[in-house]
C-alpha cells in the first residue's frame, strides 16, 4: 500500500451518534436497532453482505428516510429529517450509483455543493452588488481549490457526464466537500474502480481525514476497508453484529458466517456469490505485515474450500439463504 496503514488517529468528541435506529418498510425491517458512533478524526467502515441495510442506514442518517425509531445526533444535536437540513448541519454524502448533475460543468457541480454555505438570494443575484460579487468570487475560489484537491482542476469546464468513471467518483466527493462538512458519508466510493483507481481513492480519503473531516464509508472491497478504517461495523440483515478494529472483525465467527454461510452437513458451501466476498476477506491480510499469517480468517478460508470439494460430490441443495 502506498499510504501508511497506521495513521495518527486523533479521535475526539463524537461527531455522529446514531442510537437505536430502526427503519421499517411495511413488514420488512431493513435496519434494526443500530447504534453507531463516529468520532472526530476517525474513519469508520460499514460493511455487510448485499441487502444488509447499509445504504438504508445511510439514508436514515442523511434524512432521505425518516427512521421509524431512534435518533441521529450530529455533534450533540438531533438531526432534522430533511436531507437539505442535514447537509446544512454538516453531513455530506456521496451516492452508491454516481448522481452527478450530468449536464452541468465540473465547476458548476462543485458550486452547487456550496449552496448550503452561501446565502445570496434572488434579489442580490439580480442586483449584483459588491457583496454578491465577493461571495461569488469566493465560492469559485473555494470550488477551484477543491477541484485541485481532487485533481480535477484542469477539467473544470468539462461537462460532468464526459468525465471518466473514476473522475466522476472524485468529482462527487469534491462536490460533497464543498458543503464544508464535519462528517462525510461515502457510499461505496470504489465501486467499479480498478486497483489503481482504488488506491488513488484511498489516498484521497486519507487526505480528506487530514482536513479534519470524519468519514463513514460503506464498501465491499475489504482490502480498502481494512487499510482505511480505524473501526469497522458489520451490518447483517439490518442488525449490527460486531464493531471494532480489523482483528476483531476478521476473527468474529458471525462475520465469517455472514459472508461465507454457516457450515451445514451435506450441503454445498460458499456459493458463487459469496466467493468474491470470501476471497476479499481472506486476501485482505495478505498484503499486511507478518501478523497476518496468524490471522484466523486464513483458517476460515481453508475450511470451506475443503468442505466445498467434498460437498460437490454429494448434493447441491443451495444454502444461499444462510447469509
Amino acid at each position: 500500500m502506498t499510504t501508511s496503514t497506521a495513521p495518527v488517529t486523533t479521535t475526539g468528541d463524537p461527531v455522529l451518534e446514531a442510537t437505536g435506529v430502526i427503519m421499517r418498510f411495511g413488514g420488512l425491517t431493513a435496519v434494526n436497532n443500530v447504534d453507531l458512533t463516529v468520532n472526530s478524526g476517525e474513519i469508520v467502515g460499514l460493511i455487510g453482505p448485499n441487502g444488509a441495510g447499509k445504504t438504508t442506514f445511510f439514508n436514515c442518517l442523511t434524512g432521505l428516510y425518516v427512521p421509524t425509531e431512534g435518533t441521529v445526533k450530529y455533534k450533540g444535536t438531533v438531526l432534522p429529517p430533511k436531507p437539505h437540513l442535514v447537509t446544512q448541519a454538516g453531513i455530506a454524502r456521496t451516492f452508491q450509483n454516481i448522481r452527478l448533475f450530468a449536464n452541468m460543468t465540473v465547476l458548476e457541480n462543485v458550486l452547487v455543493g456550496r449552496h448550503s454555505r452561501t446565502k445570496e438570494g434572488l434579489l442580490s443575484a439580480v442586483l449584483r452588488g459588491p457583496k454578491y460579487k465577493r461571495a461569488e468570487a469566493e465560492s469559485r475560489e473555494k470550488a477551484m481549490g477543491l477541484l485541485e484537491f481532487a485533481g480535477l482542476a484542469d477539467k473544470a469546464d468539462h461537462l460532468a457526464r464526459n468525465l471518466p468513471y473514476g473522475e466522476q467518483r472524485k468529482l462527487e466527493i469534491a462536490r460533497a466537500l464543498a458543503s464544508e462538512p464535519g462528517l462525510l458519508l461515502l457510499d461505496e466510493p470504489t465501486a467499479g474502480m480498478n486497483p489503481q483507481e482504488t488506491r488513488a481513492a484511498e489516498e484521497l480519503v486519507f487526505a480528506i481525514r487530514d482536513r479534519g473531516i470524519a468519514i463513514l464509508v460503506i464498501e465491499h472491497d475489504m482490502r480498502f476497508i481494512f487499510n482505511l478504517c480505524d473501526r469497522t461495523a458489520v451490518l447483517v440483515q439490518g442488525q449490527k453484529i460486531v464493531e471494532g478494529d480489523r482483528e476483531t472483525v476478521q476473527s468474529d465467527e458471525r462475520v465469517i458466517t455472514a459472508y461465507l454461510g454457516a457450515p451445514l452437513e451435506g450441503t454445498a458451501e460458499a456459493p458463487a456469490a459469496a466467493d468474491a466476498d470470501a476471497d476479499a476477506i481472506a486476501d485482505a491480510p495478505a498484503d499486511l505485515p507478518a501478523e497476518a499469517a496468524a490471522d484466523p480468517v486464513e483458517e476460515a478460508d481453508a475450511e470451506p474450500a475443503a468442505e466445498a470439494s467434498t460437498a460437490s460430490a454429494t448434493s447441491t441443495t443451495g444454502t444461499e439463504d444462510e447469509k
Partner: protein
Amino acid sequence: MTTTETTPVIPLPAGTARILTAVGATATAASAFLAWTWTSDFPGDLTVTGYPGGLQWLTLVAGALTLVLTLASYGLRGLRWTSPTRSDNGILLAATGGAVVTWGTLIAIGVELGGMANLEPGGWVAGVASALTLIGALGLPLDRHTRRPLQVLNKWWFTAVPVTPLLYLAATGVDSSRPVAPVLVVLAQGGLAAAGGVVLVQALMLLRTWLRLTTIERRTAPPLELPSWVEVLLIIAAFSVGLFAITFGIDTEYGELFTGYLVLAGTGVAALTKSGLIARLRALTVKHRPVTTGAAFAAAAGFPFTQSSDQYTSVATNILIFATVALGLNIVVGLAGLLDLGYVAFLGVGAYAAALVSGSPASPIHVAFPFWGAVLTGAAASMIFGVLIGAPTLRLRGDYLAIVTLGFGEIFRITMNNLNGTTGPNLTNGSNGIPRIPDLNIFGFDLGKTHTVFGIDLGRFSNYYLLMLIVTAFVVLVFSRVGDSRIGRAWVAIREDETAAQAMGINGFRLKLLAFALGASLAGLAGTVQAHVSYTVTPDQYTFAEALPPNSAFLLAAVILGGMGTISGPLLGATLLFLIPKKLEFLSNYQLLAFGIALIVLMRVRPEGLIANRRRQLEFHEADIPAQAAPSDTALTKAGA
C-alpha cells in the same frame, strides 16, 4: 477507417462544377431583374423588367449568397472571410435555397394563374439558372459519409398506398345518401394523408442516402486580429442585417412571400453555419457580450422607425408580449425543469389585475392606478397566484405536475368566466371581459397618441412596442443574472437530479416555488402591458390551446422549439410561432396541418431547439461527439445493499 469523404454527389470535373455554380448563381441573381409573368395578378408584381419585386428579391438574395460563397471557395481576396471552413456544403445549401424559392415561385404562379403558360421567358431563365446552380453545387467536392444505409419504413405503412385508391373508389361508388358514405369519404381523406406522408418520408430517406451529407470538422485558419472597435462595428453590422431580415419577415404581405422567406432564411442560415461564418460571429458576440446585448436591443428598438403604419408594429408588439412570457416560462421549464402546462394563466392574472385597476369604466373597482402601480399590482397578483398554485402542486414530480398545472390553467379561465355577477360575485364581467381599458399615460406621455420622433411618426402600437421592449429587456436581465447565480445553479441541479440536489443542501420545494413565483410574476408583468395593448381582457384569451398564440401550448412550444434554458431561443421560437400561423392564413383550412408538420420537421431536425444551450446540444448529439467515456451501468457491478 474513415467514415467521411469529400466527393461530389454528381460526378462532374471539380473545375467545371465550380464554374457552373458560379455562372448559374450569377444568372439566378440576374434573372430576378427580368419579368417572370405577364400579369400583376400574382402578388408582388413580377412583371417589371429591371427591378425585382416580391419573391424575386428572395431569388436575388439566394443567387448572390451562392455566388459569394462560390467565389470565396476560389479563395478570392475580400470574400474569403465568408467561408472560414472552406466547406462546399454551404454552397450546396445556398443553391438549394435558391432553387426551392425560385421553383416554388414559378409553381405558385402556375397554380394561381392557371398553367405554366403564364410564365414569361424571364421566369424560365430563373428556373433553369437556379436548377443549373444546384446541379453545379452537387458536383462540388462535398463533405459526405462514405456510406449511409437506406432506411426503409416499416412495410405495414406502405399498405396505405394501395388501400387509399380503393377507399376512394368505394367512397365515390357508394350512394351518397347511405350513412356509410361520409365515413368512407373521411377514411379516404385520411388514407390520402397517410399515403402522402409515407411516400414523402420514404422519398426524403432516399434523398438522404443518395446525398450522404455530413460535416467534417476542419481546423480553420485563426480569425484575423482586428482592433476591438472594428469587431464591435462588425457586431452592429450583423445585427443591422438581422434587423433587416426580421423586419422583412414581419412585413411580408402575403403567404407565398413568407413561405419563401422562411425557406431562404433557413437555408441561408444553414449555409452560413456550414461555411463557418456563424461560428465566427458567435465568437465575436461572446467576446463582446454587453455590446451584443446592446446592439440586439438597439436593433429591436429601431424596428418601429422602419414602419410607416401601425399594421406591423401591432404584430411586433404582440410578438414581444408572447416572447417575454415564453422567456418567463423558460425559467420554470428550462432552468428548474418543471413542466407547466397552464402558464398562460399567469399572463391572464397580470392582465386582469391591470385591467381592474386601470380605471376602465367596466371595471367594478373604480380606481385608476398609475402605470408603475398597475405593473406592481399585476406582477404581485401573478406571484401570489403562482405561490398559491405552486405550494400544493410542486410536491408532485414530472407528469403529475404537468397535469395539475394544466388543470389550474383551465380553472383560472373558468373562474374568470364565472365571476360575472350571476354565477359568482361580479368582478370580471364573465365572458364579456373588461373592455375599454384606457391607454397608458406614463409621466405625461400618452401611449395612445402618435408622437413624432426624429421626423418619424410613432403610432400607438409603436409606443407600446417600445414600452414592451423595456419590459423584455428587464426580463432578459433577470433571466440572465439569476440563471448564472447560486439560485440558477440550484434550479438546474434540481432539474438534473432532485435527490442529489437535496443532498447538496438545496431546499428543493422552496427553490421550485421560487422558480414558479418568479416565472409567474414575469408573465404578470407582461400581462399588465398586454391588457392596455389589446384594450380588452376576456377569459378566452387565456386558453390551453388555440390556433393563435399566446396560449399555454404555444408558450411551451416556443420554449422547446427555440431552445430550453437559453435567452435568445424562446425569443426566436416565439417570433416564429407567432408569425408562422399568422402568415400561413392563406392555407385556410390546412393552416394548422401545415403548422403541425412544420413543428414535427423542426423537432426532428433539431431536437435541442433552434438555439441550443451548450448542455442540451451535448445531450442530444452525444453520438456525434468523439472520445467520450460515458459511465456504463456495468461499472456498478459491485453495487449492493
